[in-house]
């Protein structure tokens, strides 16, 4: 079987297309690269969707945390505390078993016990909490002069938020938010190691890497392949966020050297 055949049979194996049986003897480098790459599709799926959806919830939660109404502020604070204060690994387990018992009572919710939705919900809430903390910090750091200038121009309410507060918040939060995005993609590798089942061996990159490591007793091939994929993924995220920051800061002079991803803070 040539390498091209392998690619054809396994490139979309993680989504359920192509060869049904995973290779079980005579493992080739090509099989490992293809299957682990195929699994990476799930990591991108989980990471991208939860990041986009989490972005909106995070903005709402960050605003709620600055609210004067106790009934808005307290729940937002608790939401952030619960999801930032406990391990994602435990959140996945708890989420899965919660969905299982929900399924027992409302069979219609059974769909939540499958990884593609259930794990996505957990990741979405988790990244929303972390991003909300970042956005909250940025909201606090908006220069007062900007807000006063907006008032002086007669902006208020929604217009002031959309034109002044929100863009400035994003600009200030961007480096830390880039970091959050990178770690979110790393966190997606946990999904299939918690309760969520990889039905018909449709798993993510780490699932296949550990499959090969278990079968070959040689961790020195699959894990470096996985590492290579993730370094590429990390670089693409940094690249995308760099484009985002260029757009956010396009009114500022001297673009070069203005933006640097900050890798000091980790989740």
């Amino acid at each position: 079987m040539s390498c091209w055949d392998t690619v054809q049979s396994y490139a979309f194996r993680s989504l359920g297309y192509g060869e049904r049986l995973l290779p079980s003897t005579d493992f080739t480098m090509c099989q490992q690269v293809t299957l682990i790459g195929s699994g990476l599709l799930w990591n991108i799926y989980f990471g991208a969707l939860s990041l986009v959806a989490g972005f909106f919830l995070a903005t709402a939660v960050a605003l709620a945390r600055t609210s004067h109404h106790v009934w808005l502020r307290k729940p937002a604070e608790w939401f952030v505390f619960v999801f930032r204060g406990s391990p994602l690994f435990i959140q996945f387990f708890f989420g899965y078993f919660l969905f299982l018992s929900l399924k027992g009572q409302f069979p219609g919710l059974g769909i939540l016990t499958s990884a593609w939705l259930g794990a996505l919900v957990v990741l979405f809430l988790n990244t929303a909490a972390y991003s909300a903390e970042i956005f909250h910090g940025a909201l606090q750091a908006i220069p007062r002069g900007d807000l006063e200038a907006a008032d002086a121009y007669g902006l208020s309410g929604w217009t002031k938020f959309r034109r002044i507060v929100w863009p400035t918040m994003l600009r200030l939060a961007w480096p830390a938010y880039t970091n959050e995005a990178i770690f979110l993609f790393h966190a997606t590798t946990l999904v299939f190691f918690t309760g969520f089942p990889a039905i018909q061996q449709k798993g993510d990159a780490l699932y296949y890497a550990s499959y090969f490591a278990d079968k070959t007793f040689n961790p020195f091939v699959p894990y470096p392949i996985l590492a290579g994929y993730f370094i590429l993924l990390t670089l693409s995220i940094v690249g995308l966020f760099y484009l985002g920051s260029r757009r956010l800061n396009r009114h500022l002079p001297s673009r070069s050297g203005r933006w640097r991803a900050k890798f000091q803070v980790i989740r």
Partner: protein
Amino acid sequence: MCSDPSTLNDLSWFVCYLTTGKHLSFYASFGTVLLLLAVTAPVALLLGFGGAMLARSRVAPLSWAGQSYISIVRGVPDIAFFLFFVIALDQAFEYVRHRVLCPDWGQAVYQGNDFVVCPAAKLPLSSAPQWEHEVYGFLLAVITFSLVFGAFAANVLHGAMRAVPRAQIETAEAYGMTQRQAFWRVLVPQMWVYALPGLSNLWMVLIKATPLLFLLGVEDIVYWARDLGGSKTPQFTDYPHGDWRMWYFLFLLVFYLAFTKVSEVLLNRLMRRLTHGQAIAGGEAQRKSALEGAA
């Protein structure tokens, strides 16, 4: 009183249920987690210090080694490292023992899909009691955690060393200190206040990484929560119940929330103490508020 649980009322049933032998092992496994933290944190800090010193070394190969240690571990999901190191370290130890203990073993170590060493080189020996297997597994986990978090700590300490004002080192050199003296007597004592926010964050991340012990094959709190929570039928236990894993994991969630909250409070207190008298904004604010209090 616990001899026939089916006759008990709710409260005493729960008292008996929560003190079964397996539950006691569950409670003991919290000790495993705390032990892991207690060993890993200082070892990782030491490794981090070494890594940071390497990264700022003037000898180029040493500096590259330090910097690649930091950036490779940081660019890849930590769980991949956990899974990798546990097998790789085990094989490395066994391979070294194999070379030393069985020099005339004829066969190759890697045979197709198998890793075969001579029986005397097995770690732990196949005849070893169960506790040795558990201790060995725990040790592997500790080394793995330390290596991964050492890289994170190296990153934080490297930044902190660069954050100490250059003038401090120059002053030390002007007083005739050698580079080594300036490093140990001026830079190292001053860097902690810059490192503490990063290290506190790291401590929180370390706490939140402890459930991954489960993936490394250690019987930790996650293992027991899954084991105890699963539904039990009357044939196998005196305490039959449905699927309670959700409640067990809720308990773990609360445990971690409390743990991180307590850590946060203590670390904030430590930060206040370290900031005292330092030439940074926080120290200045403390000085001013003390002055206002006196006036």
